């Protein structure tokens, strides 16, 4: 049963929230500038609450069931994070109030900068980028600025592996640079020969995800980085897969010059149905001056009696501001809470169990689903969702049938280098019972693919909605209800 649209629940004259009457003398509205009609719905509070509660019940979230969406790290979102983020001192502070009146916030941000730097092996961190892709943009702009600052404006190329997340080439184009795609070799690593062929003095840098999108640690990472540095380029790390590396290895120690983190992946902040995330960017010492404006720094050292005085500082050669105000502070509080509770030993345990869970699933599924790069993986792995003896069945059908088992499908059709890809990332917060239940479901689906493919082709069956017609949506483009006739031209 569907839920009506908010406009369809509207009834003329109905009011939700009541506001107090105006308590000051009134002023005439400016002539010719006030609107005649405000086409918003009219509902009572109970109607609004019921509407959104019912809508929420159509969703599968991490709190509903298993969510092995590869590359997204759908780990459990601790509830205490929600409480700390809502502490009034955090939630009701204004971004532009004098920094002396926001020392609690700045202390938290400074600590988070330090911890992220320590985890990655980097000297400087900015919390300003709003999401991973935003951190990427900042990172590539930093690389560009670095070269130009040294008087070198010939470096206009960024090398991007063909297995990379789509944000990587998209970011490169946005920064005004050219994408050069590098092939993967038969073991799923960056092809060294291909890379060597492209290293010249027009290369600004390489964007590398490690572990890569196949869930594999780059076997030649040291050589790859040396090659790029050797021709004068810098290496950008896509830190989306940090969940596998916490306390295990630091990208900065491997030679990465810049890295972004996804707080909403590795550091447990919620995904929110599409954000908000947070994509802090971290850099080695030679790039610290180029970080986005502003970062948090110590203005006056403290001592035993007095804490340090923190302030907002513009790095001397900053690429500029990448968003308004300081960054997603509300998300930073959640990440801080998580890192404080985990501590040093906890973060290492996160990586250990994320990698353990992924390898356990890989081992249990490899006889039923072909895993093209079948060696110890990191926190995720990619399997193929097709069989020669079940030619009608595609990864899409497997995904849809999984929903009937109360499980959110893995990522489909990414990375592009694997046919009918199913990218599976369990995360460390899932128990062996859940992993076994997932394996059982996947094995049953593989059986159905041979014995009853129709049940897969027409799945899902047990969900409130069946398969949705995406072609119709794209052809008819109905993007708004109650559209207003708005073009005076």
């Amino acid at each position, binding site marked *: 049963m569907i839920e009506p649209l908010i406009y369809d629940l509207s009834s003329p004259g109905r009011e939700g929230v009541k506001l107090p009457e105006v308590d000051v003398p009134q002023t005439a509205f400016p002539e010719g500038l006030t609107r005649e009609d405000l086409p918003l719905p009219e509902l009572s509070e109970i109607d609004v609450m019921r509407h959104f509660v019912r809508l929420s019940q159509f969703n599968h979230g991490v709190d509903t069931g298993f969510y092995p969406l590869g590359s997204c790290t759908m780990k459990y979102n601790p509830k205490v994070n929600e*409480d700390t983020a809502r502490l009034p001192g955090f939630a009701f502070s204004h971004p532009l109030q004098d920094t002396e009146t926001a020392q609690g916030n700045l202390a938290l941000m400074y600590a988070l900068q330090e911890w992220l730097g320590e985890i990655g092996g980097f000297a400087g961190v900015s919390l300003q980028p709003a999401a991973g892709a935003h951190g990427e943009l900042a990172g590539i702009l930093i690389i560009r600025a670095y070269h130009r600052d040294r008087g070198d404006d010939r470096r206009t190329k960024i090398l991007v592996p063909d297995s990379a997340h789509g944000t990587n080439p998209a970011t490169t184009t946005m920064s005004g640079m050219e994408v050069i795609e590098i092939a993967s070799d038969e073991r799923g690593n960056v092809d060294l020969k291909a890379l060597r062929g492209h290293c010249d003095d027009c290369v600004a840098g390489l964007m590398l995800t490690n572990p890569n999108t196949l869930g594999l640690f780059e076997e030649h990472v040291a050589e790859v980085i040396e090659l790029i540095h050797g021709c004068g380029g810098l290496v950008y790390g896509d830190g989306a897969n940090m969940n596998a590396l916490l306390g295990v290895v630091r990208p900065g120690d491997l030679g990465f010059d810049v890295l972004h983190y996804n707080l909403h992946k590795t550091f447990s902040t919620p995904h929110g149905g599409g954000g908000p995330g947070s994509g802090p960017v971290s850099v080695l010492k030679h790039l610290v001056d180029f970080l986005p404006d502003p970062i948090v720094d110590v203005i006056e050292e403290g001592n035993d009696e007095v804490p340090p005085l923190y302030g907002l500082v513009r790095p001397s050669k900053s690429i500029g501001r990448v968003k*308004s105000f300081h960054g997603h502070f509300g998300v930073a509080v959640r990440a801080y809470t998580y890192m404080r509770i985990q501590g040093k030993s906890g973060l290492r345990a996160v990586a250990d169990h994320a990698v*353990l869970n992924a390898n356990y699933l890989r081992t249990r599924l490899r006889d039923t689903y072909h895993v093209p790069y079948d060696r110890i993986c990191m926190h995720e792995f990619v399997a193929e969702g097709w069989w020669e003896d079940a030619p009608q069945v595609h990864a899409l059908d497997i995904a849809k049938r999984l929903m009937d088992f109360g499980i959110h499908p893995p990522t489909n059709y990414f990375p592009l280098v694997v046919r009918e890809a199913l990218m599976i990332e369990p995360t460390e917060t899932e128990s062996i019972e859940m992993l076994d239940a997932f394996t059982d479901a996947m094995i049953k689906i593989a059986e159905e693919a041979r014995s009853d493919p129709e049940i897969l082709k027409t799945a899902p069956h047990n969900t409130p909605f069946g398969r949705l017609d995406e072609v119709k*949506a794209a052809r008819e483009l109905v993007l708004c209800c109650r559209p207003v006739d708005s073009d005076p031209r």
Partner: protein
Amino acid sequence: MAYIPHTDEDRRTMLATIGLKRMDDLYDAIPQDVRFPDLNLPDPISEMEIMGELRALSEANLEVQHVSCFLGAGAYNHFIPSVVDHTIRRNEFYTAYTPYQPEISQGTLQAIYEYQSLVCNLTGMEVSNASHYDGATALAEAVILALSQHRGKRGKVVLSPAIHPQFRQVVRTYTQGMGLTLVGDESLDNGVEELAGMLDKDTALVAVQYPDFFGRIEDFSKLGEAAQEAGALLCVVVNPLALGLLKPPSDFGADVVVGEGQPLGIPLAYGGPYLGIFTTRKKYVRKMAGRLVGETVDSRGQRGYVLTLTPREQHIRREKATSNICTNQGLMALATTVYLSVMGKHGLRKVAELCYHKAHYAAEQIAALEDYSLWHDGPFFHEFVVNCPRPVTEINDRLLDYDILGGYDLGKDYPALENRMLVAVTEVNSKEEIDDLISALEEITHD
């Protein structure tokens, strides 16, 4: 080990299944010389203890529940109805991700569709995306849309100096690699006429703010006409709450309307997460960045919603994508959807009117003080600029003694505006608070 369910038994079983002896064997591929660094991080702390620690940190801040807030400048202290937080606290909403699998994401998808519809109706535009990071980045994407619309053949962008300084900075950061000419905001004297005079065949876009950074409102119809004649796009940056009262920018012939959605049900939270509103005309929909939800039907004939026009996006079009945006501000868009639903037609109009009347009352009272005057005498919404007898930082320092958070020091961004304070008044400022501000200002100058 927080949030990790494994017992020793589980680990043994799993390692045996995989065929390894120890946990460390999982990491053979990692170069030995850099493996397992000893991180300089604090030891773990329990959930029971964390609250005390964070409460202490949070109390080292001033916050607007305990002082009267007259500070705006792009982030505003508004009343947020309690249903908003109760909705975004629903686990099914906040622990879900991007609705790639529509069959089990209709809650998120329909809510986004409703958001798109509400915001279009507010701005007068025809399509909206599912959100951008904030108002500033939405403006930057509007510039990119205009450049793409002109197929890279136009390289000039005209920006009003009265657009929020941080928004203009972000536009410059985003476009630093694009070889563009950005003009207009070099002088505060560049009003609508001067900006119109800068439009030519090389201009991709002209942008203005409504109400502007100084709170002023004006009719941009003439600029809309000039833009159309020059073949340039008109982008209006709005405060969406003001649109509860004011004419929508569609009336001026705007092509793109962007803005900061924070005033619509999103807490101040020291600057984020906020909400980038991005709306435009249907003819530009394929050049628009961000996610888009469209209506369709499912296999059972039920009306449903899906992400659509996904080939515009990074996960398909990669280096030819219109933008790299992936995760956006989904939960904040939901907050705004709930806010607009429960405030509704009457509530939003009422809030806007309250802000307007209270701000005008405050402005009048301040103007009546001997040592203060108003910088501008035209129409304004809920912010106005006060000429102060002393540096704004000094006045604000003293105001804190009265538990008042004073307005924004414009001298920080506009050298010509030293000693000028941008004062914001919203529906939460009672008459008593406003009167207290007036008497405090008066007392301060007589120190």
